[in-house]
């Protein structure tokens, strides 16, 4: 399978492109960010302003396309019209990474628009591996898949999340988009050790990191992407730096989104930590 990574990133820190920042970005301000990640579904079928902004940014920045509707763990056939439009879109935008989530999102006629967990067992390993092969074959390139935050587990799970992911990476040769926030949130909610997770994960397969701020209610953590960096996440990032300091990092902020410079402060902070680490 062809590995389309495009040019090496000169700055490994990126942010999510959100429409609340369009006005700001249209002014072509001086930016720290080295690249943008887009939610593919917000851009792939529009010829309106979102597309115009994306094309403007694409002239100066690498783009990573991250999807939310592939539903790789679904037991229905893919929505081939959706995949064809995505493929055309990738051809036009030439992203350095294409990715989606390790989840199902609903049924074709009943999309919950959420990232829903599945049981970590052999049945799903066989099924999802076959689907990843199918979709990578269709796109003609590898995809990244993101670990998700789950608010329940299945009694039918026979392996840990990291064991499942490792086996999936081995069987499909896909990339891992490692969401550190999700690892942290799951470790707190599910009661496992973060170190067990990070020690087990094959970092050579990690093509991108996601970081975000979570929220807390009744001592349960929710992956809301609504806060600045927490010290716990920074500590986790330092552990990742020891594994591989060159992985591109995205900061996500999707609720109560602040001004763009505040968002950039998060990645500047991470960049400073990395600079100290590799000094």
């Amino acid at each position, binding site marked *: 399978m062809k590995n389309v990574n495009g040019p090496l990133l000169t700055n490994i820190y990126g942010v999510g492109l959100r429409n609340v920042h369009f006005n700001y970005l249209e002014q072509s301000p001086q930016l720290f960010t080295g690249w943008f990640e887009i939610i593919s579904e917000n851009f792939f079928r529009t010829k*309106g302003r979102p597309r*115009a902004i994306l094309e403007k940014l694409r002239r100066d920045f690498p783009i990573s396309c991250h999807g939310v509707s592939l539903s790789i763990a679904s037991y229905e056939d893919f929505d081939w019209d959706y995949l064809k439009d995505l493929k055309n879109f990738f051809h036009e935008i030439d992203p350095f990474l294409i990715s989606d989530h390790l989840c199902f999102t609903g049924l074709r006629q009943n999309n919950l628009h959420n990232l829903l967990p599945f049981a970590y067992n052999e049945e799903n390993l066989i099924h999802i591996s076959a689907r990843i092969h199918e979709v990578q074959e269709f796109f003609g390139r590898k995809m990244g898949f993101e670990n998700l935050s789950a608010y329940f587990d299945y009694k039918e799970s026979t392996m840990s999340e990291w064991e499942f992911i490792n086996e999936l990476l081995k069987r499909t040769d896909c990339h891992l988009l490692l969401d550190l926030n999700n690892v942290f949130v799951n470790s707190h909610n599910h009661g496992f050790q973060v170190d067990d997770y990070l020690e087990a994960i094959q970092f050579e397969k990690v093509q991108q990191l996601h970081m975000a701020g979570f929220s807390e209610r009744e001592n349960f953590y929710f992956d809301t992407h609504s806060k600045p960096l927490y010290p716990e996440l920074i500590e986790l990032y330092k552990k990742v730096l020891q594994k591989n300091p060159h992985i591109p990092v995205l900061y996500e902020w999707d609720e109560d989104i602040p001004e763009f410079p505040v968002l950039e402060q998060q990645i500047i902070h991470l960049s400073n930590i990395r600079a100290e680490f590799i000094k």
Partner: protein
Amino acid sequence: MNQQDFNKKFIECIRTGENTEELLTLMKSFSRLPSDRALEVYREDYQARLTDALKNTYRALHAVLGDEDFLLLARDYLKNYPSSYSDLDDYGDKMDAFLRGHLLSDEYPFLSQLAHFEQMFRKIFHQEEVNGLQATDLQTVITDESANLQLVPSAVVLSYDFSIEKIFSSCLSEDDSSFDFLIPQSILMFKKNGLVKMHLLSINQSETLKKFHTPLSFSACIKIAPATMTPDEMQSLFLIIGLEQILLKS
């Protein structure tokens, strides 16, 4: 239960509350969040996401109804229409039809048409901007009886029984001055320089311009234009067509 069956039952459970007891026997509870509460979290999240999508598309409808009634409307809509879209922002495209028979329309008879207007606004916003003939080129083409003209894809002519554009504008500008919303309105909505723009039209002008939703020569259009159309109406329509470049040679 295999994963395929679980998925179906889980989705039904989130949408309708069915299958809850059965699903709970298959889920592993966390000490910090019992499984029944986890289902509630997913249910609340589902409703919040789709309601937010409706709010984004129907900003004026939301402003007219206020939070409480809009939330009730969204809940009703969700019950009747699950999403079949890959992009959440597309959710809600049957709102105008849904509102035609909805109780809220008894109080606000313009709701369905306002929803239609907002759908069209969204459609034109995402449409590729196409510039039609400039006024000078148009002069040449209208004398050619064999040349057919058509509205550009980024323009549409809309007619409503109520002052929909006025309702829409006043909602979004939070203008609370009173006006008679019972006056019918015809609107040319089009895209220019990346923005959705509008011109109000007379009934005669809109009837004439609507003919160009399908290819038609200018002379043929004049022949079937309303008999009551005045020279002033025709002249101002021609000015708009030339200025806004909304007709293409097809």
